[in-house]
């Protein structure tokens, strides 16, 4: 489903990068896990005006921005285009 999902309106769909799950050789507990604030853009809505936001680039955004959608084969984060701070 992640391959087929498309962003609507002014939204951008991102697959977050994975963060390190270990510290000093020990697994971090779930409460200590921090979400990445970067991710790969997989879909850009038709009404996004900023031309620097393109599919395939890495977006930088606030940790708590957007909604998380749980799909059958993973999770994606949906942001408003104004919540994207920059692209790499």
């Amino acid at each position, binding site marked *: 489903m992640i391959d087929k*999902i498309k962003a609507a309106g002014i939204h951008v769909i991102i697959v977050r990068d994975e963060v390190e799950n270990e510290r000093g050789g020990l697994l971090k507990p779930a409460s200590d896990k921090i979400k990445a604030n970067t991710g790969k853009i997989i879909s850009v809505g038709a009404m996004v005006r900023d031309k620097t936001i393109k599919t395939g680039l890495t977006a930088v955004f606030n940790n708590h921005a957007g909604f998380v959608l749980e799909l059958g084969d993973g999770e994606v984060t949906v942001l408003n285009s104004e919540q994207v701070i920059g692209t790499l």
Partner: protein
Amino acid sequence: MRVIENKIMVRVDQSQKDYTLLGGKRFQMAKRYEHNNRIKQPVIAFVVSGNDKLKCGDVILCHHNLFTEDSPHFIKDNYYGIKATHETIFLKLDTDGNPHQIYNNVIAGWVDKQAIVELPSESTKPKVDRYTCLVDGCGYRKGQLLFTIPYSGYEIVYIFDGEERRVIKIHKDDIIAFI
């Protein structure tokens, strides 16, 4: 009389709390919803003077607050002059009781959560952030899965010709993704 400034004139039968007739068949708003319980229900109105999107004779479902006893939209008898926006007009109905989109309100249906164990129908709960498009329009096709801001769907339940029908109204701007 012609209305101005994106307003329309409608006729609302104040005795419709029990039922009204649509295309010769009995139409009634459901009094209690299974998943989205609201005390007030939308009101059915008949367009008398319309605009570019609504013509005389069209049947629409409107927000109940427009037709209170001391409503500022009241003209005389059963006639009201209301603004035509997505917040006041929820959907359009045809003579077969089928809903149609109006003013960027997408018509959708519930998507049930999938449980590991098979549950009875009264115990299943729907997802609150995704719906299935039921009617073509607003750039979406029937059958597409629509992802929205959680709890953005507004359930409308009505009984037409003895058959209960459930639809969910979502504004187009609340849709964040689709498949």
